[in-house]
């Protein structure tokens, strides 16, 4: 269910489809801002291209917020942080509406959760949980079907911040 796909090829596709997005999505809205350390000094903005350039993880699962089973693909959160050379104990994830939830580094697995960039192969709009959605493969394991995992499944994600 979880697949790693050659990132280059996928990135090309995404660049082509990007132009068809609605005017409600501004260019900066697709940016994921990552801040290392609490001092606020270092901050990296990742575009969708940046994310697509990383190793992709894809799986099928159902969620409690959607009907049926869908395919989710994106970048493993742990791999993303490793790629950026970010270390720490806890990372805070923040949504467009400023909803925030913290997750310890220790709870991150190699393949879950992912920062999903696509649902069923399509980018997600803000009106539909976009631009990014932290997703666990809930169907894969009972341990992802609890309150902690649900609360960490943050949608309309646009910031990551190491707080500890």
């Amino acid at each position, binding site marked *: 269910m979880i697949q790693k796909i050659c990132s280059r090829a996928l990135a090309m596709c995404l660049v082509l489809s990007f132009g068809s997005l*609605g*005017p*409600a999505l*501004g260019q900066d*809205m697709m940016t994921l801002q990552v801040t290392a350390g609490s001092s606020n000094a270092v901050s990296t903005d990742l575009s969708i291209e940046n994310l697509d350039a990383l190793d992709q993880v894809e799986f099928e699962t159902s*969620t*409690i*917020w*959607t*009907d049926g089973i869908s395919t989710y693909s994106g970048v493993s959160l742990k791999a993303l942080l490793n790629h950026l050379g970010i270390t720490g104990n806890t990372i805070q994830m923040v949504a*467009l*509406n400023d*909803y925030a939830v913290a997750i310890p580094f220790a709870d991150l697995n190699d393949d879950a959760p992912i920062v999903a960039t696509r649902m069923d192969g399509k980018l997600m*709009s*803000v*009106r*539909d*949980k976009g631009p990014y959605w932290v997703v666990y493969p809930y169907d894969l394991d*009972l341990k992802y*079907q*609890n*309150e902690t995992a*649900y*609360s960490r499944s943050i*949608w*309309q994600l646009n910031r990551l911040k190491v707080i500890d």
Partner: protein
Amino acid sequence: MKAGMNRYRIAVLAGIGLLVLLLVNMTIGLLGQLRDLSIAEDDNLQWSISQIDVEFANLNAIISKRLSDPTVADDEIKLRLDIAISRLGILRFGRASILFADGQSFQNLIAPIESFSDQAIAIADKIGPISDSDLLQLRTLTENVRPDVRKIALMGVELSAVRNDAQRIEFSRQLTRTGGIAIALLFLMAALMAILDRLLDRAAKRDAALLTSTQLLKSTVAASLDAIVTANDKGQIIEFNDAAEEVFGWRRNEIIGKTMENTIIPQQMRDAHNLGMKRFLAGNAPRVVDGGRVELSALRKSGEEFPIEINITSAQDGGRLKFIAYVRDISERKINEQNLIDARDQAQRTDKAKSQFLAVMSHEMRTPLNGILGVLDLMKTTKMDRQQMRYTDIATASSEILLEHINDALDITRIEAGALQLSEQIFDLPELAHSIVDVLEPLASEKQLTLTLRIDEAMRRGFYGDSNRLRQILTNLIGNAVKFTTHGSIIVHISGIHGPDTSSLRFSVTDTGAGIQADQVEQIFEDFVALAQSEGRQSRGDGLGLSISRKIARQMKGDISVLSELGKGSTFTLTVPMQRKDCGSSLEDDIAENTSVIPKDRLEVLVTEDNNINRKVMRDMLQGLGHSVSEAVNGVECLKQAQTKRFDLIFMDISMPTMGGIEATNRLRTSGGPNAKTRIAGLTAHGIDEFQAQAEYAGMNEFHTKPIRLEKLREILSGINAHPSPAPHSDTLQELCRALGADKVQSIGDEFFSELDKLVKEVDSGHMQDRSEDLAEAAHKIKGAAAILDQEDLETHFTELEQHARNNDLSDLPKRLKTIVDIARIARVNFATMVKNTRT
């Protein structure tokens, strides 16, 4: 017991199975519950729903802020609108849609919200910046929809609460169920514990019973008088009781673990033991094991072997084969048995020796009696005065009694030895009875007794049976009656009943004598019992007669009984079965035919007899009766003489050297010579029964026991076929001398001694080497002569010599001969002196 056990086991197993099932069920139920609890999806959903209201409030706030502050960017408003609209998807999809379940109130609420969404999107997606009118319209729309949004958020919260309640109730139910199951389990466990407790209790009781019985068995085994040895399938002893210690001499603790083979089984039986074990273990049929009592031998620790009686059984003990041997030491019993056997053999030998002694004695006594009676009879033919006549009569009577005793003793021994044989023939009953009564009539007349014979008409006929034995019994019965009756009468009554083939003859002899006391009636039939009269023995002694008579009667399948009343008399009754046979005149014809010799004044008689003295006595008697006598010393000589001369009568001794009388008769009859039909009278000093059949078969006309009395001789010569009946006397050398004259006796003596010398010389010169039979015959001849001549010592020695010669035991022959020569020398002098003395 066993079925009960099984029931319990099944109950326990079923209980355990039920417990396991319940546990599995409970575990599954609880696990499900736990999972439901761990998958807490509703809380987050509830929160997400409630957040709709917040997002709409934020949208309203940002619109209001723009209206008052135009610096607020369009994008800011669009983002808030997008966020608010994105929340509507939560209500439509996923778990929320299940929660709301498309209820009518939800539809009523969602419809305006969706319409707002459409209108708001239409405004927001217009090209270009958002105008103030659009903004105002958006605010109005937002304000209008907010109550519905709030209602729907509250509805989600309410529905979630209801759902949670239901879940709680379900969980509580599950807990109740689980508790119930737990309680049921506890009860089940309690029940199982109770069953286990009972089982344990029962097992304990059984253990106790087993222990008791084991101890009982142990004490039984220990107290057993028989040795009990238990061994395993390797032959190793595993149990050894007290009695076994006693019997085998091994202590229990030193023999346990050793094999039987190396301890209690004798050397020579070990191979057989091993084979037997192998055979048994191979499953073959055992010979000793489980085969009941067997007598074998065993070994004591001391090494001595002893006889045992053993009973081996096999048993399975926990899958292992065990042999249990019950052993009894029977050495003492065996010794006792041997002693008994020895005692019996000894008794039998003694008895046999006694019989043999009696038989030999009778025989040896008859030979000298032969001489005595012969000379007494001869003496009666000489001139004697009255006193001499009286003495001669007394001597004759005494000798007759003696002979009777001898015959009786011989009869007894013969009957006891089973040698008595019945010789059956056709006879005329009245004739027999009359002849007996005629003989005894004189005795009765002497005592002034009347002797009456009565014969029933039906019995006046011929029968087939042993008439001689019948005569013997009747003579005895009538003789006794005469003997023991002082006055009155004797009645002999012959009656009987005719059966289909045989008749039961009944001879009763009734006297008027003293009678017999009731308690002595049976005693009179015992050997050597003569009932003593108060005044002493009344008449001739009679020790064996009745006993013999009864024995004979019983042999003839009859019996003798007695009825007696003291002082009035007795009735002896002989009953005996006999076959009826017509005799008519055949009897007379037989006699006429067989008797080829018609008595005439002077007969030619041949005396064949090996004993010189007997031969001479016989010759003298015959010559005294006026007959011509020829002599032969054995069968060969007899045949020789018979070839040339025809004799009227031949006396033939049975036992003779070279050729016996039976063979000689046989040859004479088949020779076709002049004497082929001559009357032959057999003579024997043995009992008649032994030779009668052979004698008759060989062709002898008659058969007599020696001694032959003068009267008997007359009878024989006159052709009267007399029955063998003895007559007694007494003997001394003096009487012999008186009878024959000293000269004659001296000459007989001389001949005797010279024959003796001749024999001694022959033996000395080695002629008798390897001829022990001849030696025995010679010794036999001299022995007979020695008896007549009253040479007791010599007789004894020659008897021994004969015996040894017959047994071929001639080891000490020279020594024996020397003794005989010494005795003979003295005896010859003494003999001469005694003969000489008789002359004076």
